[in-house]
């Protein structure tokens, strides 16, 4: 789990009870939007916006470990982000998730470090 240490920031997205099983919740953080899923076997997270057109996946439908976009019913595999059904054809970015007590945390790239480096002239 080395990848989790240096370049990942863990952010509390919601509480465990905020999401029903087989459902999805929107989480906005620092100008970006994510979708947090609860499946029978645990929590997952991905980018919030569909890779096809402008629709938020948290408005979509969770079925059999897949998220179906609310606009055109394209489907992604929730765990891998792989596009499964047209019209979606671009992979959905996924993020690691861990549960700490009653909180669901998602692991985001530590962009702050990059920004700081950019600004350090």
């Amino acid at each position: 789990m080395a990848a989790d240490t240096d370049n990942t920031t863990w952010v509390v997205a919601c509480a465990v009870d905020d999401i029903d099983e087989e459902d999805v919740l929107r989480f906005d953080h620092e100008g970006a939007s994510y979708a947090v899923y609860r499946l029978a076997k645990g929590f997952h997270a991905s980018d919030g916006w569909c890779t096809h057109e402008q629709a938020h996946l948290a408005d979509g439908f969770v079925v059999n470990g897949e998220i179906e976009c609310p606009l055109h019913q394209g489907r992604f595999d929730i765990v891998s982000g792989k596009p499964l059904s047209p019209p979606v054809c671009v992979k959905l970015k996924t993020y690691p998730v861990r549960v700490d007590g009653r909180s669901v945390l998602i692991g985001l790239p530590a962009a702050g470090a990059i920004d700081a480096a950019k600004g350090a002239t």
Partner: protein
Amino acid sequence: MKTAERGAMVIVGAGQCGARTAQALRDNGWEGDITLLGNEGLAPYDRPPLSKGVLLGQKTVTQCALYDDAFYRDNRIDLRVDAQVAAIDRVERRVVLGEGRSVSYRRLLIATGAQPRRLPVPGATLAGVHVLRSVPDALSIVGELAPGQRIAVVGAGFIGLEVAATAIARGCEVVVIEAASRALMRAVPEIVAGYLVERHRQMGVEVRFAVQVDQVLGSTRVSGLRLSDGATLECDAVVVGIGVTPRTALAEAAGIDVADGIAVDDTLRTNDPYIFAAGDVCSFPHRLFRRRIRLECWKNAEDHARVVARNMLEYGETYSAVPWFWSDQFDMTIQIAGMPAFGTTSVVRETGSASKVFFALDGDGILVGASGVGQASEISREVRIAQELIARRARVEPAVLADRSAKLKSLLTAEAL
């Protein structure tokens, strides 16, 4: 079918349905030849963006391609984009092409789609009068949508309304002419159509009902329309969206049964056991609605492709997907599940300040359709769950459907018992 099985899987029609079937044949393990015969001069492409992204100039034709060249090469799909199919020889099981050439088939899929109806009036072939089905159609319309141009749209169906929404966004003056008393007559309840038309009017589209086009005016190019109420509508271009007819000529000439499209059974097979039809071109008996239907939409082409590919491989699967359709106009979306027109009772659920979903129940109280209009985020869940309930032929209490606080998803669990 004991005779030696040889020849390729041959698909006539290289649109959405044909191309997806080719892919699905490979996905299902077919390793023999696949021949995909198109006549549009272009590799298969996605049609929905033609009335929206392409007309708005936000999407290029290249971006609409379903697959890149490598896909056809890697999957050994013999794609021919300029094929002229002259006939189907059912005795020899071959498709006759021009110049004495032919392709033998093991199974044949006819996925020739549908063609737009033209106005049956004088002047209908003048320059500046368009239909919208293909990439060349879309590109010729793009050239007309300059700011200030007066665009007449004939037909307040989905294509007409989507073109109207796009043309207004490009700064055109837009008038929609519809012969019926309201928009979207075949597709959705009057109240859904009215809601959408109201939005069009707010955005500056003029919509006129119960009036027909008697003549297209102009000498070499359209200059206006003479209408059945005696009025003359001046315009710079016309887009006609008055429906489509299935392209059945090839099948009819070969003696294949036709009934509002090529008549197939619930496995999408025609009366010839070696020949299938799918997509817009076919009518099929739907077990959920207990009648023969024909659908003209992207999702149906997509869903048919997956099933027909398996049945060409003799899986014998019944097609029973619940119809599902969308249309995006301005910031609104319409979604339709099932067949709202088959309902006898309608129940409305207010799902948001500017969003509603209508449920259609048949005489036995079984949910047969749902149509939502408004924000996708406020209607899609209800329509999606309705789609599941329709698939189960569920009887749902109208009061539950109307109650916004009643969670529809819980009905799925109850129904699953």
